[in-house]
């Protein structure tokens, strides 16, 4: 078991910086998710921890050891790749045993570890097959098995679910959560899917353009996003942003919220509720309802021409083209600077 520490970590290709001064503390046994849009540097950062990318500046430590110059296999980490990256010419057994053979472990030890991992992942019956003869989900298990047998201190996952279909993705996500519970190892997980981030993480790291935007528990990020980027990235459907001047002044005053011009107010779809015209924070025309049974997503257009989404328990009575009056609690209004996106508290 080990903690992972990143201090002033930088990475650039030629003159182009892709990771800028990242500082991060990952505790022993923590499940940390790097999340962000594609190209934000989350995979690069993970690969730097793995040792597959050089570190241009700063220090990465695993446990008490600075690993900047340590070979990937000597860092006590194991990685699960997005494409699985199994050895196509080896059987499942040898795929899992390969790393242990490289480390010159005694044969009985290798056999015991491989069989135990196969047992846990329900792939024992496939041990003699090659990856070609396996389904996507089975290959993913082998890839995870290959990581487990090495008994690493830190597991690294690079978008491990993105090649699986929706149903399998949910199952495998649960299995990874169980694996973390069972092994208690430190895990770092990269994804662009905020649902994976919310469900798996002890701690989420939101990245944009090679910089950390915010670090915190899923609920902290949901309730207290530090800027508009994090606010719209965490939560689904996305948070609605409305310029302060388009909101009813009297209602704002009644709620005790001051919102100067140049401020945008963010309200999550699930925090809106309908109200009388006089008490409305914003009034909008109903455009479309997506009824999912359990809840309904209501698409509206405000008088100022902004699209908003409201999540309701049941579809509204109003028909398309009619006006719906909406408000929300003070606690669920997030104010951000319109130019910088920074939170105004």
């Amino acid at each position: 078991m080990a903690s992972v520490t990143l201090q002033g970590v930088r990475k650039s290709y030629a003159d182009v910086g892709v990771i800028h001064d990242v500082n991060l503390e990952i505790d022993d046994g923590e499940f940390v998710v790097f999340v962000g849009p594609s190209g934000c540097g989350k995979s690069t950062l993970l690969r730097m921890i793995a040792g597959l990318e050089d570190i241009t500046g700063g220090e990465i430590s695993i446990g008490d050891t600075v690993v900047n110059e340590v070979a990937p296999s000597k860092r006590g980490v194991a990685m699960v790749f997005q494409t699985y990256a199994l050895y196509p010419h080896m059987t499942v057994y040898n795929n899992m045993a390969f790393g242990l053979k490289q480390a010159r472990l005694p044969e009985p030890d290798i056999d015991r570890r491989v069989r135990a991992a196969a047992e846990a992942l329900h792939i024992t019956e496939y041990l003699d097959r090659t990856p070609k003869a396996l389904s996507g989900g089975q290959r993913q298990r082998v890839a995870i098995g290959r990581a487990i047998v090495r008994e690493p201190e830190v597991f690294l996952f690079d978008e491990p679910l993105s090649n699986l279909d929706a149903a399998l993705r949910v199952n495998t996500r649960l299995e990874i959560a169980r694996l973390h519970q069972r092994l208690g190892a430190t895990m770092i997980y990269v994804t662009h899917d905020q649902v994976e981030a919310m469900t798996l993480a002890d701690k989420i790291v939101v990245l944009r353009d090679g910089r950390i935007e915010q670090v915190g528990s899923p609920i902290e990020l949901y309730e207290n996003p530090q800027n508009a980027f994090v606010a719209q990235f965490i939560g689904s459907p996305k948070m609605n942003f409305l310029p302060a001047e388009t909101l009813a002044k009297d209602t704002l005053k009644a709620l005790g919220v001051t919102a100067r011009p140049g401020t945008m107010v963010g309200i999550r779809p699930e925090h809106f509720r309908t109200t009388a015209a006089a008490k409305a924070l914003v009034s909008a025309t109903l455009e479309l309802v997506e009824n999912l049974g359990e809840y309904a997503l209501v698409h509206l257009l405000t008088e100022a021409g902004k699209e908003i989404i409201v999540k309701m328990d049941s579809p509204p009575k109003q028909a398309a083209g009619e006006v719906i009056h909406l408000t929300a609690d003070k606690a669920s209004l997030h104010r951000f600077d319109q130019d910088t996106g920074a939170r105004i508290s």
Partner: protein
Amino acid sequence: MNQKTIFARFIRPSLAWGVAILFFFPIFWMVFTSFKTDADAVKPEYLFLFTPTFENYVNMTENYDYWRFAVNSVITSVFATVLTLVVGVPAAYAMAFDPGRHTKDILVWMLSTKMLPAAAVLYPMTFLTKNFLGIFDTHFLIIIVLSLINLPIVIWMLFTYFKEIPKEIIEAGKMDGVNIWGEIKDIVLPLAWGGLASTALLCFIFCWNEAYWTVRLTTTEAATLSKLIEGNRAPEGLFFGRLSAVSTAAVGPIVVLGWFCQKQLVRGLTFGAVK
């Protein structure tokens, strides 16, 4: 019968046969002529009707030392192929998996060496090897020359095959702790085995058939079958029977080899075209 079926049923097969016969005819004629005596070979009345004889083949092995040339061909082609792969595999590996800023330029430059007319360096090559290095007419020289000639095309082919291996598999190997030789031995070569085999085969065929340098840089010691054919092309007389027998015996082994490895060869020749 409409026009399309006429084309499909008669014209297209006829054209295909026509082209096939056009290509095959010289080879057929060579084998055919090798069973005629030198005298019969030039007489029009014996064009098709003649008494077959093995005289040329017997003559070739007894008087012209066919086996010595054949052994030289085998030695130079095998060693040149091995040497080319020993240099080519690491070179292609480096360029495929750890490309630098100038890798593309190097690849193009290597290929450009094939554009140099061989005749342009004939004099320096002969002078250097004969008068300066003293390695004229040695196996060593022929092996080196054949390797150098084939190295660019071999590196290009291997580079293409290596490129087909996903980068992540190599990275998985790094995570598993293989060193660079383990990586080549346990991961790259097993995955590129088919490509490697066809590359080796093509390289061997090119070596075997090479004639420009093997004829000019040898006299007796390291002379290959190309030299034997060249030697039987007597300027004063037309010993077509003898020449045909020598040629047949020279191309025979490589044709048989090619026949057995057809599948690999096709893959090798169409490399890069089909993934």
